């Protein structure tokens, strides 16, 4: 039987096991919306802005490991989605975004709501497709899911002209797909793995540095096993938090610009660095000329282009991290080999000394609500088990520093692109994926206003997200840099004319609380956790002068931190 392109579209999603599609209708996708309306397999979630659709799908993907799926209309629908696509691209999140397009005969005519979706999204997708014949639609969708979810994952855009969704053809969904131009390497080279293990076992001052790749590659268990076997210190990047249990003794905290003193000092002084699924981002390395000056570097990554891009490495291993880590563990076990215990004991002594600096200390006696205290309380009250999304800025760093993630996929934030407005819609995606779990969006009064319209979506679907708004009436991170580097000229960083967030939440039918005393922080959080049928907007009035410490100023080395 012949089906329309729109019917084929929904059948493909069903074949792919898509549970939710986040989107917003419009002219070019009306046939598709009609087909979605006439079925029950795929649930469509109506957001209030296309950016939120992409962030929600992204949050869903980060929380589950399954690809997030989005549909938006042509023109402004697609351009609004671009921020979310770029966010997913920078953090290698599997996502398939369907964009409507004008009829094929109108493409290039500056038609109503026409924009070159392929051209606009090209630099921020793993790949994109324009479907020019309905007979190619099913195969293209299959390819899109395949490319998005394999190798180093990433977003894929499929641009579907309106007439393609109306044209008819036989539906035949390919069971598997092979592409001659795309064969992601999975298995690491055994010789390189052996070389890496040899180097690791000779280390006197080893350091394990892991990133988002461990989470994307479902390698947390393999990583934990290897690191415990070796008794090496380990740090995670902002994207990698939760890959190794944060409450474990061997975990020295996050590294980088606002990482812990012990993590950055251990990086700077190590003699063998084992980098796994991390990409030597500038927020991690600081000045690359001063980066790990005495270390031989092993780097495991599935993307060959990530290896020796920013920092030259000594033992590169291209491959999926999970099998590589498992192979390392096996090599060490089978050989009955052990690292240099004496040197390691000495190294741990040094690290514990750095640790004793207590670099995350803050004023616990303050009369004003300290943001760090809010996050510590949140951690305790949720017993470290919440899914925490964040926006971008000071609150993001404090959340990363003070919420100890023991499991992967619980910490969800925009690390690469640093997209304000990400946290709240991402939390919606997480809540859809885990309806019975506690989902918290840690944000600030600046970020939350960038996608605050989603309070309406949350009302429609009864999402019980907890918004922890660290309201310091400033774009805090901008203010911090202005204080440090621009002699306190606070250009445009003061947030004037803020709404009454409590009333705002209530106007959507949600609950709102305003907390301005430290003593009220914990009771408010406890109260919020009891509300299960709507959003709780917790507006914490926090200390305006608080800064994120420690800090490696831009251009400095990892051993040149500013401490409190």
């Amino acid at each position, binding site marked *: 039987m012949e089906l329309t392109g729109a019917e084929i579209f929904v059948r493909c999603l069903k074949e792919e096991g898509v549970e939710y599609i986040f989107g917003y209708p419009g002219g070019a996708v009306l046939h598709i919306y009609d087909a979605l309306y006439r079925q029950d397999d795929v649930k469509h979630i109506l957001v209030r802005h296309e950016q939120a659709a992409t962030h929600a799908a992204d949050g869903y993907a980060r929380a589950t490991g399954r690809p997030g799926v989005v549909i938006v209309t042509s023109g402004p629908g697609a351009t609004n989605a671009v921020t979310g696509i770029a966010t997913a691209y920078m953090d290698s999140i599997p996502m398939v975004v369907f964009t409507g397009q004008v009829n094929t005969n109108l493409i290039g005519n500056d038609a109503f709501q026409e924009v070159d979706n*392929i051209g606009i999204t090209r*630099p921020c997708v793993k790949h994109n497709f324009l479907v020019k014949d309905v007979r190619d639609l099913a195969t293209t969708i299959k390819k899109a899911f395949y490319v998005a979810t394999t190798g180093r994952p990433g977003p894929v855009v499929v641009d579907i002209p309106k007439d393609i969704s109306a044209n008819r053809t036989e539906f035949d969904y390919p069971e598997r797909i092979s592409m001659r131009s795309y064969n992601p390497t999975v298995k690491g080279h055994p010789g390189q793995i052996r070389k890496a293990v040899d180097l690791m076992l000779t280390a006197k001052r080893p350091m394990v540095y892991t990133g988002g790749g461990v989470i994307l590659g479902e390698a947390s268990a393999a990583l934990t096993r290897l690191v415990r076997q070796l008794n090496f210190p380990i740090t995670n990047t902002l994207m990698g938090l939760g890959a190794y249990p944060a409450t474990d003794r061997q975990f020295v905290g996050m590294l980088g610009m606002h990482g812990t003193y012990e993590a950055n000092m251990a990086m700077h002084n190590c003699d063998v660095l084992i980098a796994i699924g991390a990409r030597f981002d500038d927020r991690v390395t600081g000045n690359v000329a001063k980066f790990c000056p005495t270390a031989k570097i092993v780097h495991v990554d599935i993307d*060959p282009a990530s290896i020796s891009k920013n920092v030259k490495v000594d033992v590169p291993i291209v491959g999926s991290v999970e099998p590589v880590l498992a192979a390392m563990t096996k090599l060490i076990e089978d050989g009955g080999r052990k690292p240099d215990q004496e040197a390691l004991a000495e190294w741990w002594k040094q690290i514990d000394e750095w640790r004793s600096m207590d670099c995350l200390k803050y004023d616990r006696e303050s009369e004003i609500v300290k943001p760090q205290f809010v996050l510590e309380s949140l951690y305790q009250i949720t017993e470290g088990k919440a899914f925490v999304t964040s926006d971008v800025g000071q609150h993001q760093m404090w959340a990363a520093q003070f919420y100890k993630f023991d499991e992967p996929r619980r910490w969800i934030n925009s690390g690469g692109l640093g997209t304000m407005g990400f946290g709240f819609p991402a939390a919606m995606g997480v809540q859809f994926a885990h309806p019975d779990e506690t989902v918290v969006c840690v944000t600030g009064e600046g970020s939350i206003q960038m996608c605050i319209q989603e309070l309406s979506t949350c009302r429609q679907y009864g999402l019980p997200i907890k918004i922890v708004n660290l309201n310091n009436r400033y774009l805090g991170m901008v203010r911090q840099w202005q204080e440090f580097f621009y002699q306190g000229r606070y250009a445009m960083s003061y947030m004037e004319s803020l709404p009454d967030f409590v009333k705002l939440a209530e106007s959507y039918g949600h609950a709102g609380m305003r907390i301005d005393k430290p003593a009220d922080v914990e009771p408010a959080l406890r109260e919020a956790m009891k509300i299960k049928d709507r959003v709780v907007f917790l507006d914490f009035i926090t200390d305006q002068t608080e800064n994120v410490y420690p800090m490696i100023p831009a251009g400095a080395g990892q051993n040149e931190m500013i401490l409190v």
Partner: protein
Amino acid sequence: MRHIISILMENEAGALSRVAGLFSARGYNIESLTVAPTEDPSLSRMTLVTSGTDEIIEQIIKQLNKLIDVVRLMDMTEGEHIEREMLLVKLRAIGGAREELKRLSDIFRGRVIDVTDTSYTIELTGTGDKLDAFLQAVDRSLILEVVRSGVSGIARGEKALRL
């Protein structure tokens, strides 16, 4: 250092812009770029001349390989190879200059492919250096128009870039 990178890619709309976009987005330099379908119409072959440090060239090759449309590529500069470029040049050819230009063209093994009372169009093939040398040998004031094809390259011997 200058590198000639040959790329086999899917002959699909937009494939060229993916390569061009990669170079502009990452700030790599393109000296020349030629592209045409191969004997297999589903494949295009592109020859790209670029320059950079070893690290940059390594990144360029990795990033190109990462493009989904790129099927295979080869850095010609790594081995023995032949490069050729074609030049079409229209010259003002009047009086004594006509004989002089014909002689010069012969010396460079060029061919006069179009003639009018006042002009010659000369076709010349060779390495980029040779074409440069020819253009330098001609009196500048006589040059009316220059078209260069950009470099094409192929490996020497039996080594071949194919599927």
